[in-house]
């Protein structure tokens, strides 16, 4: 069975600082990987996804993530954060076509950007 671990439950940073949110997964087959963001009192929206091809994936709002198969990681990065990036971030994994679009989510990381 697949699983996802987000290594930090809370990440406080100052505005304009770089940030990395860490995600590790376990699976016995090839996977698709996703990062979602949830702003207060809203549902989740997709930041970026890795399906195949280049291991460096660029998403919305200046975020990017790198798929590392040997380390089974998919860490999310942004070089300079804004106050508006304060939100909860979820990493998710799917075992591709066989899973029928089913996702397994991590526990979430609360990113707080301070002025």
């Amino acid at each position, binding site marked *: 069975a697949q699983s996802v671990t987000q290594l930090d*439950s809370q990440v406080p940073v100052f505005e304009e600082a770089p940030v990395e949110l860490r995600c590790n997964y376990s699976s016995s087959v090839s996977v698709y990987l996703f990062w979602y963001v949830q702003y207060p009192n809203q549902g989740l929206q997709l930041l970026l996804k890795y399906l195949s091809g280049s291991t460096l994936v660029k998403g919305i709002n200046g975020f990017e993530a790198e798929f590392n198969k040997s380390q089974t990681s998919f860490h999310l990065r942004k070089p300079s954060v804004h106050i508006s990036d304060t939100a909860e971030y979820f990493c998710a994994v799917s075992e591709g076509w066989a899973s029928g*679009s089913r996702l397994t989510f991590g526990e979430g990381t609360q990113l707080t950007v301070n002025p």
Partner: protein
Amino acid sequence: DVKVTQSSRYLVKRTGEKVFLECVQDMDHENMFWYRQDPGLGLRLIYFSYDVKMKEKGDIPEGYSVSREKKERFSLILESASTNQTSMYLCANAGTGDNEQFFGPGTRLTVL
């Protein structure tokens, strides 16, 4: 603008009541999902459906049931609500072969 709507944003019910949470999507997607979200636990899958009248148990189906009579509508039912079902409930949908899921705004349910 594509939409996934949930019947209520906030709901307060009493222990033992039957509760219906409804989700409607206009994306013509086959797959629909119900999750509950709790602090520190992320999203956990309750039930999902690949097609009309089809349903599959997720990771935490106990105490819940679902109904999918039409492609665009997926209902979550709490037969007899309990306080441990106080949570945020999120509905999502995805197309066939496309693992990206699209989420509704969520229903925050409080059971007293």
